[in-house]
């Protein structure tokens, strides 16, 4: 099953996933290079989460076919922070890892939560909880980071801060990233490449070459955005 992964971190060939005989993924091909940041856009119900769950190995009971090669070390960030409410922040970060408490502390410091090790998840704001979830993912030094609308439940201001943080973390840890989002601007700001999924097929792909502090005021930004919105079937 595992094909030879040479220069790519993720290789997906002709991936099909069905729910009740309805193809939710209908022949998806996707390569992600090491350290590449890919954003996955698509309407609600287009199959984004299904693709991500397939990559995460969380679709045991789902019928389907196709080839899938992913690295050993994959981390997932969900839309909800999914912290265990009965474990302190530090234990949540180190969940399933043995020893080296220092790493957990450093990881929390990286996401700006130094000194909150002993807090309960319930004592944190939504944005802080999601930062703990990021720390939990990155302390494992994953080769692939899968994130399913990780900022979808946050307010607009917090979301902008999280974009900056995520860019910083990805620069430091260099994982390959697949970020599912329904926010076109978020995709353009963060990603090296944006792909658009519609009815289980990849219908568009944009490589983003805009210079570093990407701004919606940039005319190049507007052009990419209008092409992506087109692919999403939204006319502006």
């Amino acid at each position, binding site marked *: 099953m595992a094909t030879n992964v040479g220069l790519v971190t993720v290789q997906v060939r002709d991936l099909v996933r069905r729910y009740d005989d309805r193809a939710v993924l209908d022949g998806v091909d996707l390569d992600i290079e090491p350290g590449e940041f890919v954003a996955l856009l698509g309407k609600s119900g287009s199959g984004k989460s299904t693709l991500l769950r397939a990559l995460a190995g969380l679709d045991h009971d789902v019928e389907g076919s196709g080839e899938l090669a992913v690295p050993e070390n994959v981390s997932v960030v969900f839309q909800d922070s999914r912290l265990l409410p*009965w*474990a302190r922040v530090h234990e949540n970060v180190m969940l*399933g890892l043995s020893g080296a408490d220092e790493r957990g502390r450093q990881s929390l410091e990286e996401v700006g939560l130094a000194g909150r090790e002993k807090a309960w998840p319930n004592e944190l704001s939504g944005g802080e909880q999601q930062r703990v979830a990021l720390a939990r993912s990155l302390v494992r030094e994953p080769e692939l980071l899968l994130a399913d609308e990780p900022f979808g439940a946050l307010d607009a201001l917090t979301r902008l801060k999280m974009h900056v943080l995520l860019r910083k973390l990805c620069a430091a840890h260099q994982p390959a990233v697949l970020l599912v989002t329904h926010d076109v601007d978020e995709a353009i700001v963060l990603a090296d490449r944006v792909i658009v999924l519609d009815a289980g097929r990849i219908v568009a792909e944009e490589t983003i070459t805009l210079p570093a502090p990407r701004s919606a005021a940039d005319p190049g930004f507007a052009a990419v955005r209008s092409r992506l919105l087109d692919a999403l079937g939204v006319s502006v």
Partner: protein
Amino acid sequence: MSATTLPGLRQRTASAPVVRRRRLGPGKPIRFGAAIGPVLLLVIWSIGSATGWIDQRVLSAPWTVVTTAGDLIADGRLQSNLWTSAQRALIGLAFGIVLGVVLALISGLSRLGEAVLDGPIQIKRAIPSLALLPLLILWLGIGESMKIVTILLGVFVPIYIHTHNGLRTIDSRYVELAQTVGLSQWEFIRRVVLPGALPGFLLGLRFAVTGAWLSLVVVEQINSTSGIGYMMELARTYGQTDIIIVGLVVYGILGLLSDAVVRLIQRRALSWRRTLAS
């Protein structure tokens, strides 16, 4: 200021300064309100006893009960009977808790376990434990083992039911999380399953403690030769209502104390539930 040209407003200031909404709740709590009922009962009891309106053979006077309690403590009878009773209850409780938790884990973590165990326990649940007494007496005699097994049977069912329910209702999202961070089976149980089922277990524990005392009262009145229940049963044959009342008070105190202990454990163990808001 009130002497303005607005008659409507003036009138309102004079007669009804603020429009008050009718209060729908029962209102402010009364200080020491919980004590009023019991104190009233005590007063009626005292007056009744003092005036001879309550026959001493039916119900001893409160002061008689107090002096009897003093005598019972002085000659050590109360302590030794209390100790025997407490031992029975604690042993039954301990075994019942272990049995309930083990069965809940087996049935909560494996489908086969559930298929085998859950049915019989639900049937057992439908039969009051005390209804099994005749059988237990036939099987185990009237000694200590019968008493402890009866208490155990009353304890393990609520522990099982609530722990099992706690296990079954652990959010599947946490199971998914455990998979993505690669927890082993044992780590999954230790980090996710057990803490997730703890609130259910502690709820079961409160019912179990109540059940343990209930069973204790009953088994101690069957052919016992020691214990608070025996002391009361003996007093009955001599018509000593004062001793019976002392026994009742002891049972009441034990019940209240043990419930307070469980609630304390609950608060400690579930401190993570406290949030910013509370």
